[in-house]
């Protein structure tokens, strides 16, 4: 059951669709640039307090903490009045051109398949790396550090954008062009244009992009769903941007239908 308050939900009786609020781009302390406060229990608690129904854990080049956040969400659901937070498996891959691509996956197995493949391409991290880029904490569901990721997650993978999208699709995932309105690490900043042939399933913008802007209008012309995410690296960023969706339930399969605009599932474009 999603955790939205009843008065926020609009139910369409014929298709039993409900409106869900999702933040599909949240980092944990595994990402070197994210705060140590981004632990599984804190992320779940904060996301629920901010009225989110769904989050996707998307650390740089790794799915190492996804399961911990999922377990933390189940633990919090067991302790609460049944309200739950759906936690989807994801990661934010840095392509060879330094374009950030979000991958959302149907399950942990798919996410880890891609995570392991990418990890094999990254240079090793050392103490000097951690001191300049940040710790890369592998965490338990209780938020305890159980180890450090030994690959340099801040590095780029030697795969161009098209190949990253193919890798994500090969694992049954959805590929999203991340924060395209940012002036770095976006398709526009790195390539100068939107690569229509790459096969993206959706486009992500940050909280800063206004719906009245020229870029928003241009993006809507591309024929792909446009989602809004917080890209949270700190707890207080959670909930600052979210995507509204009509789904039957808060799952990856439903999200895939919504991105494709099938069977009345859809992304709400405000």
């Amino acid at each position, binding site marked *: 059951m999603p955790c939205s308050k009843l008065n926020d939900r609009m139910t369409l009786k014929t298709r039993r669709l409900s409106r869900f609020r999702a933040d599909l781009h949240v980092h944990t302390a595994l990402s070197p*640039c994210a705060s140590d406060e981004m632990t599984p229990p804190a992320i779940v608690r904060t996301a629920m307090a901010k009225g989110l129904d769904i989050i996707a854990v998307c650390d740089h080049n790794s799915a190492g903490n996804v399961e911990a956040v999922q377990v933390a969400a189940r633990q919090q659901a067991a302790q609460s009045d049944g309200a739950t937070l759906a936690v989807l498996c994801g990661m934010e891959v*840095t392509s*060879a051109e*330094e374009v950030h691509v979000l991958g959302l996956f149907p399950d942990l197995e798919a996410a880890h398949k891609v995570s392991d493949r990418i990890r094999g391409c990254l240079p090793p991290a050392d103490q000097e790396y951690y001191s*300049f*880029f940040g710790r890369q904490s592998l965490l338990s569901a209780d938020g305890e550090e159980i180890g450090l990721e030994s690959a340099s997650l*801040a*590095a*780029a993978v030697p795969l161009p954008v098209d190949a990253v999208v193919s890798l994500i699709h090969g694992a049954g995932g959805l590929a999203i062009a991340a924060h395209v309105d940012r*002036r770095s690490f976006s398709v526009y900043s790195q390539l100068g244009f939107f690569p229509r042939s790459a096969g993206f399933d959706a486009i992500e913008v940050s909280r800063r992009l206004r719906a009245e802007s020229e870029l928003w209008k241009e993006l809507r012309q591309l024929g792909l769903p446009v989602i809004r995410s917080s890209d949270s690296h700190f707890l207080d960023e959670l909930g600052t941007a979210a995507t509204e969706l009509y789904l039957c339930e808060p799952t990856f399969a439903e999200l895939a239908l919504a991105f494709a605009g099938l069977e009345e599932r859809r992304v709400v474009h405000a």
Partner: protein
Amino acid sequence: MRLAELAQILDLRALTPGTAASAEEPDSEVTRGYASDLLSDVLANAPRGAVLVTLQVHLNVVAVASHAGLRAVIFSSGRLPDDEVIERAEQEGLVLYSSQADTFNIVGRLYELGLRGSST
């Protein structure tokens, strides 16, 4: 050539007054340069002690420049980093400059002044 002298000849704007080299500092001699807008490339290939010329102004530039042991970064085409980047650079002892000239012209001038790229 000393960093401060280089900055004066190229009319660079110093962004990190706290760490800007003075002509008197013996360790501010610069002999190498690198130009790239892909930070993964800088990390892998820039020679230590080099001056980097780049358009990229985000915070990762400081981490990459520090990790690669670079002496200074020149942001080309008038691009300016925000305050957080400047503060972090000062903490790391990294010198930042801004130039109105584009990368090609800056690199050309640096080469004329005797700086060279990686040894092959």
